[in-house]
């Protein structure tokens, strides 16, 4: 048992983070360098350093704020925060964990609708074809997000430049891929 385990609130989000992705929220001393370098911080409810601070409080209400925030969905995993953090706190891995937690607890922020729709369409696309079928992705995304008019002019231009296939380019052993999806389906919904 690690020393810090004696002190950490076991129900807290930060405990889950420590257990699952080995990120210690208490290492953060709030210098803000992550927020200063984060390309999307200005759009977030809570910039990364504030997410860290909320975690440190180990107060359920604050954990809730994080899981319901748009911050975790706006994170583009550009890894800038990690590469500049003086304490080498792996915020990107932590964000992956928080996103999965937010979904499994059904606390997803409304603004994340499109983002999740896109990710789902993406995974759907490769679930059925093994490789990304961009046209299929765009159509499926429109269906999922109901953004029917978005990019209507883009696709034809792509087609004329030979950048959009009309038919998917499939992996031969699709059975294999289907099994991979099935076996890992426990950790996502």
């Amino acid at each position, binding site marked *: 048992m690690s020393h810090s385990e004696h002190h950490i609130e076991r129900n807290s989000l930060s405990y889950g983070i420590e257990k699952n992705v080995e990120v210690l929220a208490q290492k953060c001393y709030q210098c*803000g*360098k992550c*927020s*200063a370098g984060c390309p999307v911080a200005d759009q977030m409810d809570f*910039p990364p350093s504030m997410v860290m601070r909320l975690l440190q409080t180990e107060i359920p209400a604050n954990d809730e704020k994080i899981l319901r925030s748009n911050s975790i969905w706006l994170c583009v995993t550009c890894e800038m925060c990690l590469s500049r953090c003086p304490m080498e706190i792996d915020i990107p891995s932590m964000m992956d964990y928080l996103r999965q937690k937010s979904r499994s607890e059904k606390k997803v922020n409304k603004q994340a609708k499109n983002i999740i729709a896109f990710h789902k369409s993406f995974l759907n696309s490769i679930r059925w074809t093994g490789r990304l079928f961009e046209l299929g992705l765009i159509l499926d995304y429109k269906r999922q997000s109901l953004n029917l008019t978005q990019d209507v002019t883009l696709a034809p231009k792509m087609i004329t430049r030979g950048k959009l296939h009309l038919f998917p380019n499939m992996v031969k052993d699709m059975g294999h891929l289907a099994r991979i999806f099935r076996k890992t389906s426990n950790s996502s919904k």
Partner: protein
Amino acid sequence: MARIGVFVCHCGENISATVDCGKVAETIGKLKHVVLSTEYKYMCSDPGQTLIKEAIKEHNLTGVVVSACSPRMHEPTFRKACAEGGLNPYLCEMANLREHCSWVHEKNELTTEKAIDIVRTQVEKVKLNSALQPIKVPVTKTAMVIGGGIAGIQAALDIANTGHKVVMIERSPSIGGHMSQLSETFPTLDCSQCILTPRMVEVAQHPNITLYTYAEVESVEGFIGNFTVKVRKKAKSLDEKLCTGCGLCTTKCPQKKIPNEFEQGMGMRPAIYIPFPQAVPNRPVIDREHCTYYIKGKCKICEIVCPTKAIRFDQPDEIIELQIGAIVAATGFDIKHADFFPEYGYGRYKDIIDGLQFERLASASGPTSGVIKRPSDGQIPKNIVFIACAGSRDPAKGIAYCSKICCMYTAKHAMLYKHKVHEGKAHVFYMDIRSGGKNYDEFVRRAIEEDHVNYIRGRVSTIYERNGKLIVKGVDTLLSSMPVEIEADMVVLATAGVANSGAEELAQKLHISYDSHKFFAEAHPKLKPVETNTAGIFLAGACQNPKDIPDSVSQASGSAVKVAALFSQNELTREPLVAVVNRMGPPLHSTCVGCFLCQAVCPYQAIEREDIKTRDGKVLKSLAKINEGLCQGCGTCVALCRSKSIDLHGYSNNQVYAEVVALLNEY
């Protein structure tokens, strides 16, 4: 034949309340070799001690066991009493009947039985004690101070003023250290040079101080009171006795474009140079690495112009050997150069400088005569950013610890800037302001309140140049991490303080320990902050960890007192409870086989190698030898020695073995 006297103390009722002291004395009295076993109410009282002294004479005792309180309390008392009674003090042992028995157990037979066991054990031990004589070590009353910065200067002057000789070694051409580079000092803003220069001169002129500049420690041997230090005097290419310090050579030297170390590269110097105008000694040296003569084989202009013909191109390095009684290490610190932070652009953009460079810009004697001009174009910056913790508290790219001095000097820098550029704007990015110290926090508050320095809590993420400005991007963590972007004309990085170059090497030469950051380690973090693990070597200043001037000076004076105390005696007297390697006649000489594993475990470098030689110098055998001057008697070597060739006085193998047997067996 052993004749042991046992004295059982009641300690008022402290012992007798739970232990049947009479029974203890009686039972012990029946033991073999115990010729006297008696009890008394207060053994530590005068009458109690007299009892012991008289018994020693009357019964011709060869060993004494005082069964009373903890030896940590009264062992010195009773050993002294024994000595006064004519018995070697090391033939006295104490049985701890109070702290380890009467106070921790209830009154019953078991407690008395335990008391008997405790006393019996000490009786068995004392039978095996041997008469020991205190160890006397002569003291050479000359101190060496390594490093001529403010800490070294203070230590040297303090020691010299107690009437003892001091040798000061400084590796650069002048003493003065980092303090001589500073413009003003916090929290008083008095001019650094003005308060330092008189001290430097005093060192040079003090009759008790011998100064060797441009010199380094080559090797250190020996132990407390008796070090032999070899010093390399690097060739200055100059006859110092002839040189008058007129400086003509330095003005005529054709090589003028060497980055000036004293100016932190903000100015240039010639190959023959005096580091700065107030240098002590005020004599030039030739930097052979850059001198045209040493590179190309011709030039010698300095030799031609020198009015006293003092230049010596063929001068060799000189090694001198000194006998030294105590050493003060005062080798200072260095700053971590800021180029390990590519996101801050140090080295890429000329107007991003470090703290020491700013000191030179702000100094009246500096390259800009004290006008804050930025390096790129000489313009006066209207908007300046100071970044604290540039490297400190950053395990990822810098160092994990807090450099301690940066908060204060950054506040000073911002203030100096505001005092010189009234209309300018100064911003400080900080994490925490650590301003503990007399008038320190007030000083920082003044920067904020009176000089309107804009303190922003947050770390800068990146700096880049655009449109002739340095764009500094950070956040204000006190405003929900709101982005802050400043278009600065100049940026000053408060870089971390790190161990000086060569610190590790020097520590190894001195046999002192150092931490993972290569700062020298004190003997105890609280109670021996000035001592090192090696007796006779002390620390002063920032070689131990980053320190400001007041702390460095205090510690220097502290180490000077330690040296003076050492020098107040002609001989050192040490407890003889030290390890010893057995010796015997040839052909074996000792059962030590010379594996020297003990040498590796000794925390005090007290184990030396002794070569047994034939008359014609052939080494017959090498074996370990304990230096009694250094051994502190921990016994770690004793337990490690496979052939049981080392033993420890006072805790010998025979003694501890006898204790185990006695404690567990009933008689």
